């Protein structure tokens, strides 16, 4: 048995073990920590499957941003957890476990029953790659071949923020989420934020920029930028903006709006809805991705910041 195969098998066992631990962990906080570790292990699995783009996304969104969201939720629900556990009878739990097993089993069966040469569109996607001017086929799929889907995904993100904001109490409507800026921020976190954030912004922009030709892109870069903003807000060096601020709302819709505008213009200029004129594809894709990265960063940060909790200032 080669070393790599042994490593792969070990990795698979670890993923299973951590998944099981996440399910049976005592309390929401422990389960969340398990889930974050699970996500990081999963991104290693994606790397072993040579899907570096997916690995980056899993680490940044699946493990990172979702982890922060869940930790916030676990902290908020700590008091109510005991009562929530009593509400589930043994039979309900058994039923839920059965359903989960059924779904997991069906998925496993489908994957295992695939023919050895799985159906793939990879050759076609590589064939058309030169027309887009891009070097990374994943980016080409996301922003060129199925750009309409990607645009709609970004609209869903905006709806998620609207959903979070609508949880605000009436008197906080339009105010800022999270804690106010501190007079004297906690020194450890403040130092951490001041050192890390400039580097992190550079890395985030880099990951976005290389996405055209190498693994990376708007989502991964945007998630890193969002994390940097979240850290500065957590350190209370700055506070989240008022949700009524015009610039914030414009930032939240800039990505999908620019995407949609370019897509509609394609119908007039390039002879097809969401088509790019030949030769101009790469600059247009980068133009869209720039706005998308910005919007994703703002959206994810606002999702983590939560509903408005401070009274609006006029």
């Amino acid at each position: 048995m080669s070393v790599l195969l042994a490593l792969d098998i070990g990795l698979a066992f670890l993923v299973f073990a951590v998944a099981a631990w996440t399910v049976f962990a005592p309390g929401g906080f422990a389960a969340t920590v398990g889930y974050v570790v699970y996500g990081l292990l999963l991104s290693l699995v994606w790397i072993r499957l040579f899907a570096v783009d997916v690995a980056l996304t899993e680490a940044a969104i699946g493990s990172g941003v979702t982890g922060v969201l869940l930790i916030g939720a676990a902290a908020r629900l700590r008091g109510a957890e005991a009562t929530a556990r009593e509400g589930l009878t043994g039979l309900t739990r058994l039923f839920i476990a059965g359903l989960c097993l059924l779904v997991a089993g069906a998925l496993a069966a489908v994957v295992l029953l695939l023919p050895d040469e799985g159906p793939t569109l990879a050759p076609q996607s590589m064939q058309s790659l030169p027309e887009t001017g891009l070097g990374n086929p994943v980016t080409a799929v996301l922003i060129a071949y199925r750009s309409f889907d990607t645009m709609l995904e970004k609209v869903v993100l905006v709806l998620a923020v609207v959903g979070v904001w609508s949880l605000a109490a009436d008197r906080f409507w339009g105010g800022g989420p999270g804690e106010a800026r501190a007079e004297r921020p906690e020194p450890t976190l403040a130092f951490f934020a001041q050192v890390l954030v400039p580097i992190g912004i550079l890395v985030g922009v880099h990951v976005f920029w290389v996405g055209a030709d190498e693994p990376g892109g708007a989502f991964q870069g945007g998630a890193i930028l969002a994390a940097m903003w979240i850290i500065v807000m957590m350190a209370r060096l700055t506070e989240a903006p008022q949700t009524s601020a015009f610039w914030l709302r414009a930032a939240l819709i800039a990505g999908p709006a620019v995407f949609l505008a370019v897509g509609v213009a394609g119908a007039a200029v390039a002879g097809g809805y969401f088509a790019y004129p030949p030769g101009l594809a790469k600059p247009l894709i980068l133009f869209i991705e720039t706005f998308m990265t910005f919007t994703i960063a703002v959206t994810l940060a606002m999702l983590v910041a939560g509903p408005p909790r401070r009274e609006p200032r006029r």
Partner: protein
Amino acid sequence: MTFVLEVFSIAAIGAGVLFFLAGTAGLLRFPDALSRLHALTKADNLGLGLIVLGLLPRAESLLDALRLVAIWALVQLAGATAAQLIGRAVRRKGSAA
């Protein structure tokens, strides 16, 4: 890669793995949160440092080598900060359970 560099690389990575093993054992066996934290940070600092050191001769370019060192430095920063924050939280709680 010359023989000397190869031996150096394997030795450094092996030593780093040893630190991670010891750190994990400490994390599992030490009685209170502060000593567990102590064990963990040693694995982060020295263990990862040695592994990065061992990987440096294997880097394909100077840029890759710099990236490895940068990753180590960032983990240092994050690890030290997290350890400080957890340590403070433990002390504030009063019990080191």
